[in-house]
């Protein structure tokens, strides 16, 4: 007698759980559109591990999550949850081609569900396939407008320079809410970031406060407030907040910003310490099989060897020819003393119409160094409108370039 048979009476429990039983038990279940059994628990363990990676900033969880998803897919190659988890992981590791492949495979298995669309859209955006991404996003928005789709639409609009529309979509994302308070806090931070791009420091501050109300102590919210502090000239307060945020979650971006603020405050030793921590963090990500992305290129260009940044930038651009990769490679070239080539990539970064402060600053500096004064002035003027979004160091570069 199998354990299931023996426990028959108790198994006849709630009707509502039968959907779950299908997932867990039904061998080769015949039902249409149902993911089949076996690996559901492995997939959920994998997602738990990715959550853990996010909470701790420790990318070694990636490797363990990968094992879980593989275990699930070995049991059932059609396990949609595992496919989507693996797709998310691929995206986190900047392997956008793999993310796209897995997302499309999941969609093929559940053609009438939107579950796979976020993976597909993210990968298409990072691979620079903007027309395809727009179609995917429009479909998401048509079928299931919610935090997931609104926040992506917002980013897509931002890349196209439609800042007001980006803010509008991000507000919809925040009011729609999510299943975890972190999701809501996260989009409230992104809303704050957009407000900085629009030059509205007060509105940005309120958005960051909302994030911290949703999730007290949320590191990204503290980083946001630090950026608002820096934009209003209060570097001391910014540094204190960044140290607290980095203590909770030592992300590269936070550490680099801290280093730049410390440097502006005339504390080189503290700045060097933060940079060393950022480098260590980058190493951890490499060891967890994370591919370099635009952020690593910019970091290398600003705080390492520009020549190496160019090599890294080429790799990143070849793998993921997005506007972000173009900006990073362009900046590396400019920093390496090749501003004409730098400018050609900087132009690609803004070809969709982006008004991103850093993209425009990079384009302006490249144009100036290439001797194209009028073009430089144009780009720098756009950057100046969005200067609240720049780090203190970038803001100083802007001032120098404008002189």
């Amino acid at each position: 007698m199998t354990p299931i048979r023996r426990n028959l009476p108790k198994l006849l429990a709630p009707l509502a759980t039968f959907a779950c039983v299908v997932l867990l038990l039904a061998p080769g279940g015949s039902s249409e559109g149902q993911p089949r059994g076996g690996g559901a628990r492995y997939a959920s363990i994998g997602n738990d591990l990715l959550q853990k990676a996010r909470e701790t900033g420790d990318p070694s969880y990636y490797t363990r999550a990968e094992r879980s998803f593989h275990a699930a897919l070995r049991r059932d190659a059609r396990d949609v949850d595992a496919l989507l988890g693996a797709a998310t992981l691929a995206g986190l590791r900047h392997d956008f081609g793999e993310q796209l492949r897995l997302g499309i495979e999941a969609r093929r298995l559940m053609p009438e569900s939107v579950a796979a669309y976020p993976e597909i859209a993210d990968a298409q955006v990072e691979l620079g396939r903007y027309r395809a991404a727009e179609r995917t996003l429009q479909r998401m928005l048509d079928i299931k407008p919610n935090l997931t789709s609104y926040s992506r639409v917002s980013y897509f609009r931002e890349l196209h320079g439609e800042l007001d529309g980006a803010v509008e979509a991000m507000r919809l994302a925040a009011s729609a809410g999510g299943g975890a308070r972190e999701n809501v806090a996260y989009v409230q931070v992104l809303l704050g970031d957009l407000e900085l791009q629009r030059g509205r420091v007060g509105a940005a501050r309120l958005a960051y406060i909302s994030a911290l109300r949703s999730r007290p102590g949320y590191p990204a919210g503290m980083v946001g407030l630090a950026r608002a502090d820096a934009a209003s000239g209060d570097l001391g307060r910014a540094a204190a907040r960044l140290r607290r945020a980095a203590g909770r979650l030592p992300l590269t971006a936070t550490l680099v910003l801290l280093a730049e603020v410390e440097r502006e405050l005339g504390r080189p030793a503290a700045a060097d310490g933060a940079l060393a921590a950022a480098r260590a963090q980058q190493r951890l990500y490499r060891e967890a099989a994370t591919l370099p992305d635009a952020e690593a290129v910019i970091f290398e260009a600003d705080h390492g060897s520009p020549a190496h940044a160019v090599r890294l930038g080429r790799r990143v651009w070849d793998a993921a020819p997005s506007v972000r990769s173009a900006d990073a490679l362009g900046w590396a070239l400019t920093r390496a003393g090749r501003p004409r080539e730098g400018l050609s990539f900087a132009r690609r970064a803004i070809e969709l119409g982006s008004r991103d402060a850093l993209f425009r600053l990079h384009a302006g500096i490249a144009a100036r160094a290439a001797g194209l004064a009028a073009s430089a002035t144009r780009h720098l003027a756009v950057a100046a409108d969005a200067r609240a979004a720049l780090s203190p160091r970038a803001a100083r570069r802007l001032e120098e370039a404008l002189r």
Partner: protein
Amino acid sequence: MKRLSFLAALLAVAVAVPLSIGSSHREAPRILKDPTADNTDVWAFTAPDAPGSLTVVSNWIPLADPAGGPNFYPLDENARYYVKIDNTGDGYEDVAYRWQFKTRFRNPQSFLYAAPTVDSVRDPDINLVQTYDLYKETYNKKRKLVDVERIADDAPVVPDNVGPKTVPNFAQVEAGGVTPLKGGGKTIVTPADDAFFVDLGTIFDGINLDAPGRPNIGLGNQGGGKDDVAGYNTKSFVLQVPEAEVTRNGKPVAGADAGNAVIGVWSTTERRRGSVLSRGKHGRGDRWVQVSRLGNPLINEVIIPIGKKDKFNATSPANDAKNFGRFALNPEPARLLNALFNLGVKETDRADIVQALLTGVPGLTQIGKKPAAADTLKLNLGVPPAANPNRFGVLAGDVAGFPNGRRLIDDVVDIELRVIAGALLPADQGGKQIPLGDGVDQNDKPFRSQFPYVALANDGFSSDPKRIEPQHAPVPQPPQ
């Protein structure tokens, strides 16, 4: 997503898939839950204290832990929350009630939602303030919107029951949220104890039935089950309107046989869509799109396959026969009962299930002569409330209960289990009387006999989720 949200939460599945960490590229979350749009249950009944009126309870935002922080999930001010009524039997709404919310912070700089003490629904110590307007929409036979009337204006949402220090007298605060409606009747939007009751836990842990400390629940018909929803809150929208506001001829219902007696009720949530890019054009052609709906309990959970849920949530009950009829006619749970336990339950051609839930029982819950097979909760307004309601409703001969509408006390899990096993079929057509259940018979908190009927919200301070049903003698099928 409905009750699957519970599955997700109880399985401790990550509710959101991580965002990017090691990079600045901006992956937004891929959420598996969308509570502000998630309407988990609808009840529709004639309340004993309000004969001549329709009473509807509709819940959104499931599994709110009372101690999880006040107003953790405010209602979405950019969504439309609907209770819809079909009085012609075509599966399309003829009357629809739409709640739309506004959110503001009295002090946007503050990190708090509320400060002690909150003594009334409009107390200035409430920082996050939500209010709503309620609209009544009327449609003609061609499904055109012919009238929209605002029947409540700037009504307050009852704040969350943070605990006795912040909200010393929650009942008094809640009472202030009862809002009279233009045209008669009243409404309230309030946090409340989730009126649903079910044992979900047994099977989640990898079918871990032999876990120590778990009472033997037998066939689930003798108590012993654990109510996994007990102690959790939700947002309850309660609406009570004169029958004449919703009947097909705009008149009160003379009796159970009257031509206007039966209505179909369901709830939906709509959000805004638009163009991804404006490309310099003004406006984005904003339109509303339905992202969730709910009529009969558990249809979405057990009848609609996972891959079809997005489609189910986006479509109208009027098209249910075409889109999902085969899933109701050949229900997965019947196959499952047989595959697992070899019960010999009829798996195909389950016209009895289609009739009980979708087309309506002739003479009781069927609307008109040729009704659409639509997932709406059918209620015969002419059936007077039962003096002694039975949680098995129609199965126990109590025709004032589910599937004639749904009262708060109706044990829909036990009823549907028994129906799927064949309780409504004659023995010579595969009928089986199997006394199934989930071991949970009633809500953890008693319902109120007066508006808004649902139990008062659990407070955050003394929060104590889950409850075990005491064991009792087995309840046979048919129930006594």
